[in-house]
């Protein structure tokens, strides 16, 4: 079974704090993704990584950065947390494909509240 784990299920931080969200997958997947999910807005892609040390901006990268030093680990960093970053954060991983699409496997999510 594919397993994607996230470091925290619930997190409460103060405005201006630097926040680290960690994601680990155990299936040797090349691709990893960070999304946020908000009511009425659905799943929105923040950043993704094709492979180690590679990263690409998604649809809403402002206020976020990422790090992928090892294949199994993908970190999302909120440089200075703001209240509008209160959300459910979801990590996903997938094997790489060129012509054929492959499913993404999601972690359990981190519910982040910024006060």
């Amino acid at each position, binding site marked *: 079974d594919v397993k*994607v784990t996230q470091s925290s299920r619930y997190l409460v931080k103060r405005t201006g704090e630097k926040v680290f969200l960690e994601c680990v997958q155990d299936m040797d997947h090349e691709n990893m*993704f960070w999304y946020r999910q908000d009511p009425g807005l659905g799943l929105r*892609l923040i950043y993704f990584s094709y492979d180690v040390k590679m990263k690409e901006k998604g649809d809403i990268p402002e206020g976020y950065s990422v790090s992928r030093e090892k294949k199994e680990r993908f970190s999302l960093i909120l440089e200075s947390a703001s209240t509008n970053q209160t959300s459910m954060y*979801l990590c996903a991983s997938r094997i790489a494909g060129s012509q054929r*699409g492959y499913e993404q*496997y*999601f972690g359990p*999510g981190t519910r982040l509240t910024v006060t």
Partner: protein
Amino acid sequence: EDQVTQSPEALRLQEGESSSLNCSYTVSGLRGLFWYRQDPGKGPEFLFTLYSAGEEKEKERLKATLTKKESFLHITAPKPEDSATYLCAVQGGNYGQNFVFGPGTRLSVLP
């Protein structure tokens, strides 16, 4: 631009009452259509991948089908434990490796 819409937005069924959820998409060069189930407060759980029109996949009470413009998730004789939000996503040729997700259908199955 790749787009995915889902209907209905919400659906209430009695236990045993079969129905279908719709996912309509526009995409350039479909590489895959994906169905997920999401329970409240949890991450989406992968259900099916469909690649070409005419393809069908089944799992327990769920059956997914695909045409050139839409996909259906048929639920046969649903049970209360099938209550969840069902998400559809596509991967097309113009968006690289990324998915475009639909807004989801919130299904409630009443005992």
